């Protein structure tokens, strides 16, 4: 290992570098993440310790580059005099006006030592270079005269794979990774490969991949589906998974786990580093990233803590008058002038909303408010055309924009300069999320991150007071990974069958080396193999179906080219509502809106999208054609994306706040503001103590209402609503309409439900959940909906070949239809069971539901008959979501509906239109 420099040769220690550094160089100031600048100063005291880090790294630096093949080595002319790679990197940092952080040094040393791990820190604090410069240092150590060697040699083969959850981040990431590579003259190429990659670049990459490839989980799966995947990844030294917290708790995360296991198999010794925001379950996040060994023990890995978030200040705009009947959206835009004033306090601001519809509404209101900077307000959300989003992100970087109204589309690490002011419209829903959003502000040295919440209904003020408590108590949410989803496994198995094929026992061992599938049973594995070869038990008699086939030596491959094409086009686990492009008749794309909304529009109807009022013309070629509307008003589309529930941590903080109110303690300003509401609730009904469970009963023209208030977040409430409806329906043939929000849920039925009898019979019991939940689900059809995603991932439904819509239409079946067919003819299908399990575990959060029931069943039940809707009940009535559980015969139910329909018909109201 002649090219390995002596450890710690002392020619340019870090400490000296720092002492030499006079501060950020002005020429680079604008490009420099301000957070780096700020934190650099904080770290002054820690400078000296960095020298130790240097020593540590040096000692660990015994291994040369993993690429030992002489043919691939660049020609070395002579050794550069200052060959210490670390010094080189530090000089580069200095040239940018930066200094390295201790956590970066730790990651570099660990990487050079052959370790893997997870780095967690706030966005924009230098995580990227913590992960990236490890491989760079390794190369510099292996080829110290890289600068000179660069000329005349081919770029190095694929060494680093950088996985990013968002295509949109790929370009920024490539730019960030390229900077040191180019400045240091490494013979490396850095490119991205995503769904957006131009055909030319793709073709080039088909021949030869770059040295570092930035890609999405889906594009990585596609690479693994290439027949030459074994050769592609032979030289891989490092995989970095960026924004791991975003992937972790999703099926995309599971897909990444499987891909990482595959890469460990193809390139033994590959190191894996994850970059994540701070989570409540970092150990699990690390284990999911690194996998488990044959004995089920997690692979060793380091957990590195990056820069700690700054102090965070949370406040709220409190409306001057508070209505006593809060409902979502009620406060609406009355706080607009104060939001505008808050934005004016700084030079730049971000206004976060919880939904795309809210973003549209606020954007419209702010731009038509008459403020002189109205033309420097922009909107940013996930349905907008990519080019418009790019323009907005660019505007944020250059400072051309004063204010951006945005959704979680700006939560991720889109790289831009911090803003002066951050506002959050609507409930923060969770502590971690608020921290992340607040992190967009206040990067000046010594500054405090501040976020101002803008309530959309008065009760959200309670959430604000509660989140402040939760943050003070250090409560940060966890993101639990998905446990062994068979749809993702089936898809991955076909991917590997395409990518050179697999032997069943080898792939099983590999799959079990992921955390997600560590407990995969032999039966589940056999079923999965059966599913991809024969379509499952019931399809044995149908030879026309076969996706993968085992050849004579037991290797599974995909033989059918049609199946291969279909599979490549369907890789991935993202299932979106079917959306249509929105375009002007005169040309120009605005983005996409869900079909369910557009289908209700008629020619001439107006709607608001991308901040503009549009007139709907027609739908043709999967596109909604529009023109600019002359009138200023229009309906705002509702996107059916997941509405986020209160996190468990925040829900508990809210319950504490309500109990304080019951005891007459109103300390926080937000609580003082909602005092009249909570006192009215107390007078008309009750405010429950922690050991009490409140049920309100109301008879109205609509029917008989029952209101329950567990305060556990909307998802748990939806599950409890279905469960309680099912249990009540066991006692009497009743139909229920269900509604849920973050505080409680409502069951509405035409006839009075036998509440007391049901309470005696164990309505609130956590016993028999395993039976009752699936039973209630069948009725509620949640599983049928969940099946949509599973059917898509497992390859049951196919979204079509690009540009060939019509001809394959006869090969399409809706997932709902498939679900019905399976339920009837193949009830033991494991994908159906998975749908039920996913609804239980993920949608309904069964474990959280069970814990809630245990808490509730231990409580004293207070049944209160109310004469009119209480402040807590009112939002449920207003904001009702519909679900149906019934034990009535179908025909009876329809006969009941008839009189109502008659009235509708006579009234001339056009049903089905919003």
């Amino acid at each position, binding site marked *: 290992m002649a090219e390995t420099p002596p450890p710690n040769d002392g020619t340019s220690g870090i400490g000296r570098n720092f002492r030499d550094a006079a501060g950020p160089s002005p020429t680079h100031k604008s490009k420099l993440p301000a957070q780096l600048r700020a934190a650099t100063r904080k770290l002054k005291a820690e400078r000296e310790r960095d020298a130790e880090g240097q020593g540590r790294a040096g000692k660990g630096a015994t291994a040369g580059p993993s690429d030992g093949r002489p043919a691939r080595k660049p020609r070395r002319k002579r050794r550069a005099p200052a060959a210490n790679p670390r010094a080189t990197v530090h000089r580069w940092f200095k040239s940018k006006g930066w200094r390295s952080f201790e956590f970066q040094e730790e990651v570099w040393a660990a990487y050079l030592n052959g370790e893997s791990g997870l780095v967690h820190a706030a966005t924009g604090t230098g995580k990227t270079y913590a992960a990236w410069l490890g491989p760079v240092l390794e190369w510099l150590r292996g080829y110290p005269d890289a600068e000179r060697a660069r000329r005349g040699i081919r770029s190095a083969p694929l060494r680093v794979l950088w996985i990013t959850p968002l295509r949109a981040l790929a370009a920024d990431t490539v730019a960030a990774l390229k900077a040191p590579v180019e400045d240091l003259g490494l013979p490396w190429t850095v490119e991205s490969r995503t769904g957006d990659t131009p055909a030319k670049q793709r073709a080039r990459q088909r021949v030869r991949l770059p040295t570092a490839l930035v890609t999405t989980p889906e594009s990585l799966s596609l690479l693994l589906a290439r027949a030459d995947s074994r050769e592609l990844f032979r030289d891989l030294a490092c995989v970095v998974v960026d924004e791991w917290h975003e992937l972790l708790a999703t099926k995309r995360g599971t897909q990444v786990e499987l891909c990482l296991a595959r890469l460990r198999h193809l390139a033994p010794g590959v190191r894996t580093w994850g970059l994540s925001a701070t989570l409540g379950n970092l150990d699990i996040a690390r284990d999911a990233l690194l996998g488990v060994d044959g004995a089920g023990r997690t692979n060793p890995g380091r957990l590195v803590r990056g820069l700690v978030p700054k102090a965070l200040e949370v406040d709220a705009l409190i409306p001057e008058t508070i209505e006593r009947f809060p409902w979502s959206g009620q406060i609406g835009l009355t706080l607009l002038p104060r939001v505008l004033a808050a934005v004016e306090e700084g030079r730049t601001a971000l206004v976060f909303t919880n939904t795309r519809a809210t973003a549209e509404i606020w954007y419209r209101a702010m731009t038509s408010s008459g403020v002189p900077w109205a033309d420097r307000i922009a909107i940013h959300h996930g349905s907008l055309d990519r080019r418009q989003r790019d323009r907005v992100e660019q505007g944020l970087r250059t400072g051309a924009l004063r204010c951006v109204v945005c959704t979680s589309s700006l939560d991720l690490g889109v790289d831009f300069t911090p803003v002066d002011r951050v506002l959050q419209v609507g409930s923060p829903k969770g502590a971690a999320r608020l921290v992340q959003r607040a992190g967009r502000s206040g990067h000046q040295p010594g500054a405090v991150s501040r976020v101002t919440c803008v309530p959309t209904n008065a009760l959200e003020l309670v959430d604000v007071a509660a989140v402040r408590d939760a943050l003070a108590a250090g409560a940060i949410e966890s993101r639990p990974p998905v446990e062994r989803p068979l749809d993702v496994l089936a898809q991955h198995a076909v991917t590997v069958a395409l990518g050179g094929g697999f032997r069943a026992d080898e792939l099983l061992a590999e799959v079990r080396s992921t955390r997600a599938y560590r407990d995969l049973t032999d039966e589940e594995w056999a079923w999965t193999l059966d*599913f991809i070869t024969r*379509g*499952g038990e*019931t*399809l044995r*008699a*149908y030879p*026309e*179906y*076969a*996706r993968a086939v085992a050849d004579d030596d037991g290797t599974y491959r995909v033989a*059918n080219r*049609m*199946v291969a094409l*279909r599979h490549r086009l369907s890789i991935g686990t993202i299932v979106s509502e079917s959306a249509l492009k929105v375009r002007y008749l005169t040309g120009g794309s605005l983005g996409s809106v869900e079909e369910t909304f557009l289908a209700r529009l008629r020619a001439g109807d107006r709607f608001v999208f991308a901040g503009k009022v549009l007139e709907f013309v027609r739908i043709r070629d999967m596109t909604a054609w529009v023109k600019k509307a002359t009138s200023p008003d229009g309906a705002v589309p509702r996107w059916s994306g997941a509405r986020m529930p209160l996190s468990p941590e925040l829900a508990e903080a809210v319950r504490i706040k309500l109990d304080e109110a019951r005891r007459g303690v109103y300390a926080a300003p937000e609580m003082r503001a909602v005092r009249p509401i909570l006192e009215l609730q107390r007078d008309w009904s009750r405010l429950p103590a922690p050991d009490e469970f409140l049920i309100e009963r109301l008879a109205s023209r*609509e*029917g008989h209402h029952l209101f329950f208030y567990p305060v556990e977040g909307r998802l748990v409430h939806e599950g409890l609503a279905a469960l309680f409806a099912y249990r009540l329906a066991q006692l009497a043939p009743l*139909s*229920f*309409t269900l509604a849920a929000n973050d505080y409680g849920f409502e069951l*509405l*039925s*035409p006839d009075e439900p036998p509440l007391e009898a049901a309470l005696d019979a164990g309505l609130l019991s956590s016993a028999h959940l395993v039976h009752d939940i699936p039973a209630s689900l069948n009725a509620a059809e949640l599983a049928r909906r969940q099946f949509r995603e599973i059917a898509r991932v497992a*390859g*049951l*439904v*196919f979204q079509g070949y690009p540009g060939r819509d019509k001809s394959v239409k*006869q*090969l399409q*079946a*809706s997932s*709902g*239809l*498939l679900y019905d*067919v*399976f339920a*009837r*003819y*193949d009830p033991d*299908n494991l994908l159906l069971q998975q749908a039920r399990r996913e609804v239980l575990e993920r949608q309904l959060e069964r474990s959280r539901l069970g814990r809630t029931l245990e808490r509730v069943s231990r409580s004293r039940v207070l049944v209160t008959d109310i004469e009119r809707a209480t402040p807590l009940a009112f939002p449920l009535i207003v904001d*009702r979501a*519909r679900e*149906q559980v*019934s034990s009535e*015969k*179908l*025909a009876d*139910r*329809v006969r*009941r*509906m*008839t009189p*109502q*329909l*008659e009235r*509708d*018909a006579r009234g001339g109201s*056009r*049903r*089905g239109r919003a």
Partner: protein
Amino acid sequence: MSDLTLVVRGETLHLMPERAAFWPAARTLVVADVHWGKAAALRSAGVPVPGGGTADDLARLDSALERTDARRLLVLGDLFHARAGRIATRTLATLRAWRERTAGLEITLVRGNHDRHAGDPPPDLRINCVDAPAHAPPFVLRHEPAASADGYVLAGHVHPGAVLRGRGRRRERLPCFVVGRNTMVLPAFGGFTGLATVESDDARALYVIAGDDVLPTFTE
């Protein structure tokens, strides 16, 4: 089982919960959009759909034939889903066996869009195929609904479903007959077919299939 009886242009029609209409004067049972072999077609495209649907469809057809003692079966298009499905040996064997049992039944297919892709059924199934529009006064038989000056149109193609909303904001989507002044659209007969939501208005009434009954969604 309870049918709903209408008089259309002087002719009695029974709307049946088997997703069929019976025209007693002509002893003709009318169905639309059978889509036989759809599951098999999907399977050969790599979608693992379990079988059994064809047998269920045939059982429902038998029930309707038995209750009406129809002599003739009129199919308003889309009898077979796709070519691949048409030649699936298993499906065909089931159909042949059924056809032997119903040897006395005359079957006429008014070709629909799927039939054009699939081609005519094998001759041994003894199905007369005609192009739309076919005439059986006072009715005009078509696959895709369109008004006609020659008579009252019976058609399919749409797979109509009605959304019912009731007290307590309940919602239910059911297959239905769409009965207009000049046109009637039948529900899709095949069990493995989806629904397209149709709204009722002044010009057309919806009759929904709710379990074993056909019910109006309004009262006169």
